[in-house]
Structures are given as C-alpha cells and as structure tokens.
C-alpha cells in the first residue's frame, strides 16, 4: 500500500508502552493459567463495568438530526464508551458511469478515527476497515429498498470516534438510523449487537477488553459474534463470527443476540418518532409563518 507522503508519518516501528505495564498479581496468575473467565468477570459474576453477563450497555446520547449539518441524514450514538457518527448522502447520480445498475447502489465507508483505538490508526483505510465497510454495505443492502432509486447511489460514511468494543454492531444501528433520517426507503431497521463467548458463559455487548482477541492462544469455546438483525421482518442481515466454537453454542449466541435486538427495537423506533414529530412541527410552524 502506498503511504500518503503528504501527511506526517510516525516512525515505522513503534509499539505501545502499555505492553510494558506490569499486570497486577491476580490478573497475571489468571493469565498464566489462561483462565479468561477470571480476568473478565470476578467471582460474583459481575463484569468490570458492573454489568451482569446478559446485559448490554445502554444506548445513550442518540442524536439524529443535525449532527452532520451538510449530510442528508446523520446519526450519532454512544454505546458505553463506543462512540460513532454516521452521515448519509444521496441518493445522487452514480459517479462512475461504467457501473450501470438498474438497482440503486450503496457506498459505505467505515473508518476508525486515528485516535479511536489503543493503537494509532492511519488516515487511509486499512484492510480491516475496508472489510468492515464491505460487511456494512452487505448488511444495509438487505435493508434498503434499492429498487426505489435506480441508477443512483447513496453514500454512508461511518466514523468511529472511540472504540470500546463492538464497533461494527454499533455502526449498523447508527447507519440505519442515519438512513432513516435521510428518508431513504427501508424494509426495516438493522440493529446490531455482539456476543462474546467464553466456556459456559456468554457476554452480551462486550467492551474492548472483553472482545475476543484474534491472536490470543486460548483454546475452546472462545469467540465473538456480531449480528445485524432486522426485528420486524425477523431476518439476519449481517453475521460475522470469529473464534472457535461448537455449532450448538452458536445457536445459543444467536438467540441471545436476537432477543436483545427485539428489546432495543422500540427504543430505536422512539428516537426516530421524536425526530419525525419535530420535523413535522417545524414544517407546520414554517407554514404558519408564511
């Protein structure tokens, strides 16, 4: 990949000083015995942020209008410390004429802000971000009525401001809210959530520390699942599983995740309802003024 020479680059090889940090004795002991469960949740079955395993972080500070004023629709959500903003542009003419298609096209860009993760991210999209963009697009394509705007494209830009676990899940929810606020016709909202699997334990909506780390050498029943669920139509629009698990466990994880999505649906709908009411009342005021 060519680097963008116009921007100031850090040294090529550097690593986080946090790797040198001494862990406290308890954790070290647990890490030695590879007992993740002990690291992640104490003996009293409570996670570090005082949630019980099957509890998600609350969706808060959901802002739908005007967060990106130039965009047709936008949304900002916080799920715990995971914060992201999404802007939707279009439908507008397809720029590349060669890509003719009778259906509308979605263009998704998923980007981590350079400061959003523990390790610094580059300004250009890296491979992981490109793949996440692809996943986001495939999920949203299932929800958006593409046939309604032939020969046009809609752009969805997601920027993660702070990543504290489950960024793709939050991005799905955020993007579908932004699409709705841009009045793009959709079959249903896509609500995203993640589940972390540990031996005999499932953690809903894991934080960064709780998320499955790809390189960690822990053996069985350790995985991460992210789904995008469309609650009204009861369909799965995105499904990404990483890590080792048995088929039966996957079923359980899926169940936990879909149940959560069904629970969140009314909350998200309420947010949208408020926006619509506000816009309508604004419009009627404007009319009175005229």
């Amino acid at each position, binding site marked *: 990949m060519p680097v963008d020479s116009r921007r100031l680059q850090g040294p090529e090889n550097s*690593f986080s000083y946090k*790797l040198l940090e001494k862990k406290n004795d308890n954790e070290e002991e647990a890490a030695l015995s590879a007992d993740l469960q002990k690291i992640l949740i104490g003996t009293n079955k409570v996670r570090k942020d005082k949630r019980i395993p099957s509890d998600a972080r609350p969706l808060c500070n959901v802002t739908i209008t005007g967060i990106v004023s130039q965009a047709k629709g936008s949304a900002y959500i916080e799920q715990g410390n995971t914060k992201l903003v999404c802007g939707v542009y279009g439908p507008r003419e397809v720029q590349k004429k060669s890509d003719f298609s009778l259906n509308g096209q979605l263009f998704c860009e998923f980007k981590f802000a350079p400061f959003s993760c523990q390790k610094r991210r580059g300004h250009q999209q890296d*491979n*992981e971000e*490109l*793949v996440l963009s*692809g*996943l986001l*697009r*495939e999920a949203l*394509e*299932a*929800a958006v009525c593409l046939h309604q705007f032939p020969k046009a494209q809609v752009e969805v830009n997601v920027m993660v401001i702070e990543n504290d676990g489950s960024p793709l899940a939050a991005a799905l929810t955020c993007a579908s809210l932004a699409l709705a606020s841009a009045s793009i016709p959709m079959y249903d909202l896509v609500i995203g959530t993640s589940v972390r699997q540990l031996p005999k334990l499932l953690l809903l909506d894991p934080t960064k520390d709780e998320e499955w780390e*790809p*390189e*960690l*050498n*822990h*053996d*069985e029943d*350790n995985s991460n699942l992210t789904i995008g669920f*469309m609650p009204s*139509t*009861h*369909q*799965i*629009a*995105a*499904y*990404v*599983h*990483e*890590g*080792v*698990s*048995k*088929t039966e466990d*996957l*079923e359980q994880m*899926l*169940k936990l995740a*879909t149940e959560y999505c069904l629970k969140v649906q009314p909350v998200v709908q309420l947010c949208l309802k408020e926006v619509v009411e506000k816009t309508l009342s604004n419009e009627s005021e404007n009319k009175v003024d005229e």
Partner: protein
Amino acid sequence: MAEILLSEAEKAFIHHGVQDDLRCDGRTRLDYRPIILETGLVSNASGSARLRLANSDILVGVKVELASPSPDKPQEGRLEFFVDCSANATPEFEGRGGEDLANEICRFLQRSYASGDTINLAELSILSGQQCWVLYVDILILECGGNLYDATFMAVKSALYATQIPSIKVATMDGDQPELELSDDPYDTKRLNTENLPCVVTLMKIGNHYLVDPTPEEECCSSSGIVVAVSGNKKITAVRKIGSGSLHPDSLVSMLKTGSDVGAKVNKTLMIKLLEEKNLEKSQKVGFMR
C-alpha cells in the same frame, strides 16, 4: 468471474433444479465438483499447492523467512496471508481491480487461522523475543469458476501441509547476540501439524434450499449465503454472511449445522488425499502440463 448474465428463465431453471435436488450439472445440493490437487510445484517456495475446483484455479506458495516476533507476542511466530487476484482470471482484476475481493478473502483467512486451536504458532518460535519463523502464505487466484472460498482454503491447507521448515539451532550466546545455525542438510526439515487447519464450506441459499460448492451461475441466482470455516476437530472457527440478502435465524442455524458436517468431511478427505499425494514419486508431477 467473467461477468455472468442470466435471463429470468435461466434463473428459474436453476431454482427448480435446486428445489428438486438435481442441479444443472447433475449434482445434488450437497455435492462438490471434481477437484484436482497437486503440491510442490514451485521450487522457489518452501511449500506450494495448486488446486483446481472445476474452473476455479488457485496457486498457493508458502515462503518461510526469519524475522523478529511482534513485541506483544514474543513467543510466537507469524502467518502472513496475501491474496492476489491475477488478471488472468478476468480483465476486471487488472491493476487494482481485484483488491476488494482479495482483501475479503485475506481477512477471512486471517480470522479463521487466528485461533490457537487451528495452528500452534509457538512451534514457529526460535528464540523468544528475538527470532521466529514467519510463514508468508501467498495466494494467487488464476481463474474464478465459483466457490473461491472453499478452493482457496483447501489450497492453503495443502500448501501448508507441504511446507518444509528447515531445522535451526541457537548456538552460544555471544554477549546479547545469539547465533543461529542452519542445518547443513537441506532435507533436515520439519513439517507443521496441519491436522486442525480449517477448511471452508460456502453455503448459498437459493429459494428455500441451500447448496454447497455453487457454480458462478448459481452464485448469480442467490442473494445470500454463509461461509463457514471448520477446523479439523469439527469446531467452527469463523463464519460470515455473504451476499446482499438476509437470512432467517432458523435457516441460518440449519445452514451452520450442515456446514460444519460437510466441513468435517471435506477436511478428512483432504487429509487422506494429501497423504496419498505425499507418497507419490516426484516424477509423477504434472503441474500445468496436462
């Protein structure tokens, strides 16, 4: 993946075939197309394999190199995947045209090989914190005839199976600089334990049924499916939904089950065939000369 244009009638024909469990080429829904596999074709690589699944043609070369381990995992070697979609497959891949597809496959490879259950990266360590083996797994896609994921994973597994890692000894510590001694005998090599490396099964949904090993035409008929990576011990190591459609949770679960069953079978057969191939004499290699 030369562009495929199907008329509605052709699509209907494929649909009906799938419904009656008799596909256009005479297979049932859970049958694979014939596979040609050969290892040890590229003498400049430490291990290589060429796999041809009907029209999908994949060449994998593994190069073993010395490097220093990453600071956060001092006791492990590394696997680096790189996928290149050759323009030989279709003119669309010319220049950087194949990068999106390559990225997608590359990332899925990384994720499914990430778990300690599949490959023991500690085996690749030479001197903790200072020297380790890096296996560069380079995948060259020469022709796309559908079902790229399955073909790629089988080829990668075969190439890693054939990979020979030279024996190396750490000689006297001279101050801080350890000296590495490479064995004089070029045949003094070891092979990796590849028993548990994952195979992938792609399941595409067409109508109310799903099928394995889709042809390009069938891929064109289907809007969604899943790819399941199944390790040698029948555990699932990664799953992804592909395509722009959505799936019902129930059908997803049943696809997962079938996927893991088929995956285990594929894995077993592949291991048997690889052993048979290893015992063949070198003069019997055919390569691209048919």
